[in-house]
């Protein structure tokens, strides 16, 4: 909660600004100006550009109305990327988030030895660049020399060996799981902190009523952690819409665009195919998706979590 010792102002912004010049200039005007120049203006410019045809170089941009959007909605690669984003999101919500919760709970319930060691190990990849993570799994998942397939063969599961990045049916899932591996530490830390904030009495009361771990998770931990879950879902959502690095490093959308996601398609169309107008239209679609999902989440679940 904000607090100020002085309340000379008359409640309006102008009255306040006169009384507090320093705070108004450097605390409000400067950041809003920076925001407007580098975040607000680019968003508006992207929307503007989506109505033009432009190769990124020519001084003249050609106005084409909604042609970019019309093209977009019959572009096969757009739909592939859109569906891939959805798959990526589902994998990200199921694998790292639930596992992160499980690890946090198991550590908090003191069910394992050396809990802080496990926490450190799982959190470490959060600090790694996805380029490095991608390279690591490129080596590990190599079908000939890679450790994973070697392990599969040695335990008699050789039939599971795949071209993990080359098989169009699984390449996207390989990427999403790798991204989940690198991300699990995030939900884990959030849930760990969240569980620490749940009053001890709540768990004690459940125990007296005879709750086991399963009931403890379902009836106490998860309901208490709903705001934390909402924040994690938001984070995961935006992470999955940002998916880019692993694809650029490992598959570049191949095979046949089957590992393309919207965030990478924008880059390809703009900076490789020089179709900046079309790239902008794709960007607007991403913005609309991100914005509407954020609005739904903020409105419904997150009430109060971001309260100032």
């Amino acid at each position, binding site marked *: 909660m904000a607090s100020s010792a002085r309340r000379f102002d008359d409640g309006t912004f102008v009255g306040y600004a006169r009384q507090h010049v320093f705070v108004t200039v450097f605390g409000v005007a400067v950041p809003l100006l920076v*925001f407007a120049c580098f975040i607000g203006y*680019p968003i508006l*410019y992207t929307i503007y550009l989506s109505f033009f045809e432009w190769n990124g170089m020519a001084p003249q941009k050609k106005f084409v109305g909604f042609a970019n959007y019309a093209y977009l909605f019959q572009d096969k690669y757009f739909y592939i990327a859109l569906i891939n984003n959805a798959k990526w999101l589902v994998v990200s919500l199921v694998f790292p988030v639930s596992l992160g919760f499980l690890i946090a709970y198991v550590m908090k319930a003191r069910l394992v030895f050396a809990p802080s060691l496990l926490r450190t190990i799982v959190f470490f990849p959060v600090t790694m660049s996805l380029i490095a993570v991608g390279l690591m799994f490129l080596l590990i998942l190599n079908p000939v020399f890679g450790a994973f397939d070697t392990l599969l063969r040695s335990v008699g599961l050789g039939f599971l060996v795949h071209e993990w990045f080359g098989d169009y049916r699984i390449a996207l899932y390989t990427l999403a799981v790798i991204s989940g591996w690198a991300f699990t530490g995030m939900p884990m830390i959030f849930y760990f902190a969240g569980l620490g904030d749940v009053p001890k009495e709540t768990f004690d009361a459940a125990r007296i009523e005879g709750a*086991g*771990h399963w009931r403890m998770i379902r009836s106490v931990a998860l309901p208490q952690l709903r705001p934390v879950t909402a924040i994690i879902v*938001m984070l995961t959502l935006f992470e999955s819409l940002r998916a880019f690095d692993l694809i650029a490093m490992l598959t570049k959308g191949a095979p046949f665009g089957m590992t393309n996601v919207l965030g990478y398609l924008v880059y390809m169309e703009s900076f490789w195919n020089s179709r900046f107008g079309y790239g902008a239209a794709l960007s607007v679609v991403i913005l609309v998706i991100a914005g509407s999902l954020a609005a739904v989440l903020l409105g419904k679940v997150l009430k109060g979590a971001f309260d100032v």
Partner: protein
Amino acid sequence: MSDMAINPAGRGRLLAVLPKLAATALMLVLAAVWLGPLLLIVMTSIKSNAEFLAGPFALPKSPTIQPYIDVWFGLGFGTLLRNSLIYATAGSALAVTLALVPAFALSRMNVPGRKWIFGLLLTGLMLPQQTVLIPLYDTLRTFHLLDTKIGLIIVHGVYGMPLQVLILRGFMTTIPPEIEKAAYVEGATDFQVFWKVILPLSVPGILVGYTLNFIAIWKEFVFGLVFLNSEDNFPVTVGMLKLNSDRYLAVFNLPAAGLVISQLPIVILFILTYRQISGGNLSGAVKG
């Protein structure tokens, strides 16, 4: 945080031990899944070409640092590391500097509409960067900042600001209001309260924010890829793209060594600051 444990109702000895055994087994598997790849990579990076062919699980018999030397000069890691260091150091400094007074204003002052200002700044956190690449590219080109270090530092600083406002505001909120009340009674101005009271008390929060931003810029890839052209300006992430090529993937010890080099500065930072950055500071900031 370790004094609290979740204790379910006991149901006899065996049933009490069973979940513990299952959990420990599960955690061992998880530890292997998370630690295994890292260990294998470090192991591969110190193998000679001949030893690499013995298989991924064969222990290195005569460890060598030759792969490190080869990949260091092959990829020019000296320049790449220096560049990443410049971007991370300067970009984070800019982000924190931009965020300090706003965090003060939004946490300790009754700025009208502060809720809206905060919410607006936070949208910068949620924005997928790919959607603003084209306008930023265009803007940087207009100001002749494309393919310059300054240009990338500015972009990193600006895009780091929202998270810094979130973290620093959360931190400043925890400072008791009595402290600045005393200063105001003595006739201090807003600036004096900020500079002499709040800022010194916020140093731990600033360090956490700076560290997180440093790591974020070290990891960053999209901006570096799009806004830079010359290898002299590449950060580590962009320079490392080359490791995914036939030239480097013939034997895995070179890319493995490159991977270790690229993460080493972060590993050191991680060891030095692990308690601070993983202590739930982020979630604390969100709850504010």
